[in-house]
Structure formats: C-alpha cells, structure tokens
C-alpha cells in the first residue's frame, strides 16, 4: 500500500472515529483452522481500535447484542441469511458466483472476494502496454458477470473476444478461438472453467502461444497465471473498516477498496516480459482509482 493511500486511510479514520463511539462488532467465522481468519480479525482490531470486536465460530452464534455482524465465507453468509435478525451485516470472502439471489436483504452488504474487473483490466494494461483485445471465457448462465466485464472493458478502452463454454468438452476449442484473436486471457470468476482440472490445458495452451493469463484470483498465480489483484487480510480489514466508518451500510455488493498485486516473476521472465513490481503496480492502480 502506498504512502498516499495509507495517509488517506488514516485521515478518514481520524475524522470518522472522532464522531463515533465504540461499536459492538461480531465477526462470525467458520471453525476451520485458517490463517486468513486470524489475520483478518487482528487486522480489523487494529483498523478499528475503538470498537469492540467479538468473534464467534459457533454455527448459531448469539448475535442479539451486536450492532454490526461481519460474516466470513459462504457458510456463515448462509447462516446470516437464515437468521431473522435485522442487524446491519457485512459478508466478506464470498465470490460473485456464490452470491445469494438478488435483491439482497436490506441489512446486507457483500464485499466480494473475487477481483474487481476494472482493476484486473487496468493491471493487464499496465503489464502489457500493447494490450488491445482481451480474451474472456464465460461459463453458461453468467449474464450479470458478462455485463459487468463488458462495462469494465469499455471503461478501459479494450476490445473483447469472448466465448461461452457451454459444455466442458468444448472448452479447448473455445479457448483456442479466443486466444487466436486476443492478446491475453483474462480470467474471470467462473469455477466451472478455472479449476484444477482445466487449468493445465488453459495455461499450457496460452503459454505455448506466448499469451498470458491475468487472474482469475490469487491462488492461480503460483500455478502459472501472470498476475492478479487481490486483497490481503489486512486490505480486507481496512476495506471493511472504511465501509463502517462511511456511515450507514447500503444493501448491495462492492469490491474491497484496498488491494494488492501478486505476480509470477518466473512466468514473466520466461516470456520476455518485464518482471512485475507488485508494490509499484498496486500503488499505481490505487492512484488511478483515486484520481477524479
């Protein structure tokens, strides 16, 4: 995170926390051994020093006294949706494809875990200055996501060459067609396409054509994707804190305001691309988002 955004964050914190008294925040998290959960909790406590942050991992936590509920993961979101409470709630670590049917309840705001499309495209443009046509593979029934990507592509001045993979056995042919007419493959939140079974074919095929994969999310980087934006536990905690401090929660979804960049230097090097500087990239992308 850059100095500018840190300063900005601190400024917002200082301004808001001056007017707000301590809140009772309940984090509900699944009872799994997850470093991510622990990191998030401690980062949120740091970000909201005046609030009382309680944690529950029970399947039916006692939530009556909480003023804000934060659910971690899809399972806890489902619990929240089944609960009659009207307490304002933020659901985090939920991907677009796992969202409950729209419209969301009025008390619920979801901070999506999958990267923000516009951010991914801006990252791709930074890494590949000559990027003109982005290649995208959609799964069947992803109309809402298609719209969102279409808007992001238009906003970033990119053309798209896309295909819808209706059946698993057509993936390779659709991939080949998309790769042939695009400059890079942009991974989207589509677990029926981007999964352990298909990844080898996707990465080897694009790599053999000297084309890179951007995204779809951080775990793919080690596998061989070039780069992605993502939010660390700290980014996520700051983003949640910012939401809380901005006043009344709005129903709907958003992406985390804070994020980082993760790249695979070996892949870049092997393809003769400049080695991405993740810290610099995230700073530049953040500045781009904050520009008027």
């Amino acid at each position, binding site marked *: 995170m850059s100095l500018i955004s840190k300063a900005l964050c601190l400024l917002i914190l200082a301004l808001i926390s001056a007017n707000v008294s301590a809140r009772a925040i309940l984090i509900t998290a699944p009872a799994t051994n997850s470093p991510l959960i622990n990191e998030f909790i401690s980062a949120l406590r740091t970000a909201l020093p005046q609030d009382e942050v309680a944690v529950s991992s029970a399947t039916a936590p006692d939530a009556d006294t909480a003023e804000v509920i934060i659910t971690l993961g899809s399972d806890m979101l489902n619990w929240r949706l089944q609960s009659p409470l009207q307490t304002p709630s933020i659901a985090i670590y939920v991907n677009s494809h796992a969202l409950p049917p729209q419209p969301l309840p009025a008390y619920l705001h979801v901070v999506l875990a999958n990267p923000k499309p516009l951010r991914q495209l801006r990252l791709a443009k930074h890494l590949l200055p000559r990027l003109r046509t982005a290649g995208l593979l959609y799964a069947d029934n992803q109309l809402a996501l298609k719209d969102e990507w279409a808007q992001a592509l238009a906003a970033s001045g990119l053309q798209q060459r896309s295909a819808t993979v209706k059946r698993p056995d057509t993936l390779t042919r659709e991939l080949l067609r998309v790769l042939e007419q695009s400059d890079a493959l942009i991974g989207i939140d589509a677990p029926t396409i981007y999964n*352990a079974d298909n990844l080898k074919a996707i990465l080897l*095929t694009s790599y053999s054509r000297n084309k890179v994969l951007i995204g779809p999310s951080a775990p793919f980087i080690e596998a061989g994707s070039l780069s992605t934006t993502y939010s660390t536990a700290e980014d996520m905690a700051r983003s949640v804190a910012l939401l809380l401090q901005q006043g009344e929660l709005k129903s709907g979804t958003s992406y985390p305001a804070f994020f980082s960049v993760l790249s695979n230097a070996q892949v870049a090097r092997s393809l*003769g691309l400049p080695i991405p500087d993740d810290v610099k990239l995230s700073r530049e992308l953040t500045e781009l988002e904050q520009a008027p």
Partner: protein
Amino acid sequence: MSNRITFLAGLAVLGLPLTLQATTDPLLDDLELPTVLSATRLKQAPAEVPGSMTVLDRQLIRATGARDIPEILRLVPGMMIGYRRGNQVNVNYHGTNVTEARRLQVLVDGRSVYRPGFATVDWAEMPVAIEDIDRIEVFRGPNTAAYGANALMGVINIITRHPRDTLGTTLKVTKGTRGVSDWLGRQGFSTENSQTRLTLSGMEDDGFDSFEEPGEDYRDGKRLTRFNLSSAYQIDSANTLEWQLAASEASRQGYYDYSPFLGAAKQPLGKFDELIDEWQPDSDIRGRDYALQALWKRDLSVDHSFQVMAYAQHTERLSDWRACDSPLAFSAALQELSDLSPLAARRVSRYMSHDVAGGLRKYMNDFMYGEYYDYLGDLGEAIVQERQQYLDSEPACFDVNQHMRESRYQIEVQDTLRVNDQLRVVSGASYRQDRAKSETFFGGAIDNGITQVFGNAEYRPHENWLFQAGGMYEDSELVGDAFSPRVAMHYFLAPLHSLRFVYSEAVRTPDMYENNVNWTYQVKNLSGPVTGQQTYYATATGPGNLDTEKMRSREIGYNGTVHEYGLALDLRIFQERITGMNGEPLKITDFYPNNDSSAEFEGAEAQIDWRATYADRFRLTYAYVDFTATNKLDQRLTARNSGSAAWIRNWPADIETSLIYYGADQLNEHRFERLDARLAKQFAIGERSRFSLALVAQHRLDDEPLTWDENVYDSSNHYYLSAELNF
C-alpha cells in the same frame, strides 16, 4: 516434446519470492491448483540462453508461405540453403560442404532425423507437414554439449503442435506453377484426458525447369505422401504421455547415376561408343520412412521433473537400374590396378577416351603426382590392349542398386531439478542403436551403439550474473569416445538485457559411409561379352579409423527485449574453428576420407524482431561470415553476406500480408536474391467454421541459377494458391 535447448526456466528474481500468504486458504474455495508452469516446465528466457537462438514461430512460418522446411530456414541468420537438385536440399549453417550437410543436428520433437548411414538430413522427405509445426528452434552454433555428436554447427529443433491445438477438421489444397500440387487433411479428436491428431498430407512439384535443352524438364521432381498420428494423454496431474506414429512414402526423379569406367570416346571408335552413349536410363529414388516415438513426463515436485523418451525409426531409400559399361569393367587387370591405385585406373580411363598424345605411361606419370610406378603402367598397357577386342562389341550390362536401409532405436532419460533459487541442474543419459544396411555400400549391414551421458548446470549467484556449464560424454562403438564441454557466462545489464560469453567444444563423429564403407556393385543379370570373372572392378573401402571432427567456438553476444516497443534483438560475433575435418568428396572411384582438412569461420550476426504496431511486425536478419577452408569443396557454400527482411501486417477484414526479401551474395558462387509476397484472406462461415485463401508469389531478383548451374527455372516468378477449410 523433449527440448534440451530451453530446458530451464528463468530464475526468479532474487529478493522477490512469490508471496502466497492469504492466497490459498480453506476459507475460500479450496482450489488445490497444480503448479502448471513450474520451474522445470517454463522456457528459458531469451536473455538466458547459453548461445544464439532463433525461434521461428507460427506467424513467421505462415508468413513465408513455405511448402517445406528449408525455405523457412532462410529466416535464420547464417543459414545457407543450397540445392543439389530440386528434390535434394542441403541446409548448412555457415557453410562447409556444398552437397552434403553433415554438420547439423535436426530433431523432430526430440527425435533425430540425422541419417546414421549417410550422415546427412533428407530435407525433401521430412515426414512432418508444415501445417503441423508449432515452431522451429534453431540453436546457432555448436551444441554437442546438449545434443551429442553431429550438433557440430547447430541444432534445428522442429516442434510440432500439441494435438490439443489442432482439434476439429482442416482440409487444404495448394496448386501452383512448377507443378506444385499439395494437399492436407487433418482431424483432431479429444476425450476427457487425451487429444489425438491424424494428419494425412501430400506434396508434389517438378523441381527445376529446363536442363540442357530448352523445353526439356530437369528430372528432379518429387512426390510424397505422409501420415502422422500424434497423441497426448494426461495420465494424472503429474504424468503425461505423448506418442507419435509417422510414415511417409516418396518418389524422386533422378538421372542415370552410374559412371562407366569407359564411356564413349571423344571421337567414337566403334559400335560400343554409340551404344554406351545412348544408354541413359533413369535412376529414380523411392523412399519410405517410419517412426514411432513416445515421451513420458513425470513431475516429481514443483522443482523436479523427470522424462523418458524412446523412439524407433526406419528409413529406406531404394534406387535400382540397369547399368552398362565396357566389358573392361570386369577385367582382372583393371581390378588389380584399381585396388593398387584408384587414381591410376581413372587416368587409364581418361587416356582411352580422350585421345591423349604422348603415350599412356607418360600421361600417367604426368598426372599421378608422384604416385606412378612402372607396374601400374604395365597394367595400364594391358587394359588398353584388352580394349581392342571390345571396340565393336555390345557393352556389358547389369543390374545395380544403391538401396540403403537405416534404422535407429533410442531411449533417453532426463532429469530436471531446481536445487534452489540459484541453482538448477539437468542431467540424463541415453543409449542408441544405429544400423545401416546396404549390399552396395556395406556388403550387408553395419551396426553402431552409442551411449551418452550429459549434464548442465545453471547457477545464478546474483541477479546480474548467470553461469552455465555443461557437457556430454559420448561413446560410439565404431568411433570411440569424446567429451564436449560448454561454458557460458551472462552479465545482465537489466533483467531482459544480457551480454553473453560462450565457449564450447563440439565433435562430429564420422558416419558409417565415411568410415566403414565397403562399396562395390553387386552385379546381377550380367549380359554382354564378359567371359572371365563377373566381379566389378572398383571397391571403395572406408578407413575404419577416421577420427572425430573437432570444433572450438567462441562467441560474444547481446540479447535484449524492449517490451514497450515490441523490440527483441540478438547480436553476436563468433569465431569457429573445425579441425580434423573430412572434406573429401566420396566417390566409389575416388574414396579418400581423412581428417586432414580444417575450416574457420568468423563473423557477426544480427537478428531484430520488431512488433512496431499492433498490426505490423518487422524482422531483419543479417550474417557476415568470413571463412577459410583448406579443402576447396568446403569453400563454396558460404555466403559472405546474407540475410532477410520481412514485413508482416494484419489488415482489417481478416486480411494478412507479408513481404519477405532473402539475399545471399554467393551460394556456391551464385548470387541469390528473392522477394516473396503472401496475401491471405479469411472468411468466417458461421460461428465455428472458416475458409481461407492464400496466394504466394515469389520473384527472383537476379538471373543466377540456385547453387548449381543446372538449377534454373524458366521464369523468375513462381505462384501458388492455397485454399483451406477449417470446421
């Protein structure tokens, strides 16, 4: 498949390890993704290659419009493409012998197609269709440290497309001037974890045009049919098996390929001279190639992989015809003379057919450079005397053949290990069995077993420095053992810009033909007035103790990529010295292989690839080669200045054009300059199908023959049109 040039990935930039905290967590979907582009699977970055490399990608291959591989190789700086005939191509890097390319290793998906018996590569019958090639990687300079003997001057690695990339159906037809008529049918299939491709293809053209008399076509056409079945099977996430089955069948035109001991005299003396003069049957060559190969790759971990490759291949070149000669070819005196001195036998032949004044003994004495002695003259006189009885006779006619059957079996294991961020090691071993079988050349079959052990280490102590050292120890049953080391040092001016310093030693083992030939015609169905023995007079015998040719090479190079401008360049200066070189012509009547020649090449090469805009790609290559060779046959193929310039552009409406200039100032003392243009248009038919048309036009900018005087075309223009349907 197996690719030892680019075996290693670029090392991660020191101090920037992949930070993976919070990227895989049970809270999020537990993806359990395999590391696909692992350190052992990534290509070596261009700036890290221990030598000079040219990669001809699919766009370039398509842009050339080439129908065969040698035509594409003109894009490689320093590559000399010569033609012996229209159906016999000779590809040499930097030069040496103008008719035989003995010093380049050529691999198709890791399988060597270098012929063990004749130590050459049969480009005209390469059993792979251009349309199935993904890329051609050319390692310019000696690389026996990684590829074993015969990679003396370089390695050409032809890599076919993964069957995954060619699903669906492709039909293609090409027709053009010079008898061009090619076709291809391809079908790709896939199941859940395997992909398979079947390609059937054919090629035909009539080679060069007028020969001797206008309107009389040079008999150098070829026709060939190929079959290729290629499959990849993903056994599980850590194991893959790729296999290929290839076969081809070809027919090549050829002229009467027999030099009689005594042809027609300058002034015909009798009936024999007329008959022998008229006797000119054709000696066409029928070829068949078969290959089966399999490659098993196993990822032991992200940093460790292992592979086993095995292949078997068989090549046949069959050529037989009825030869006629003077009955003297079976004379006991001539046989004795030829055994004592093949040169004396040639002098006697020339004396009889050329009306030389001054007597036989004087002529032999004058033109045998001190090797003459009286007994040879006695034998010569006896032969001249014997000839008198055949002046008006029928010639002696007999069936001969130059059949050659070669087979090769190889198994190789290779291990790639990343020890840590600074050090990686590739090592392996192989065993190969070569067999060449020919009654004429070997009096039967000859076998050779070759064992190789190789290793290569890459050490990066600092982000600015990279050191690579490797070597291969090779032991050949027929020739003995040799070790070829290579060391390379890279200094990085920036992450994608390096200066390299490379020293390597390389060897070429003599082939069976040079070293072990036992060449004589096994005469069958002899007719004519031969009364005594029926043994053909001449025998050429290989010395059996030829040594390896040795090369020492030094180079200083620069490789850089300026990504924001789409610019990639590679420059180098080099010095190569081959010693112990066998540069002699090898004919049955003149067979003196030795290790007495040497050659030296010095020069500079440049390769610039510039994707100037989104639609335009420019590519320039240039080679300056200064050479000396002790044998005059090795002096002629090298062009001092050669290069290419290409412009490829994608236009709107799916139109693609390319314009390529090729130039060499002297290929066997002939200038070569050609301008090729290609215009292609693609039409979409519905969602899934497309049809494309491509017109290729070639224009020779000079009026020189190509490599040899008889290699001429009637027109300096050549056109062909391809139609392709994909669905």
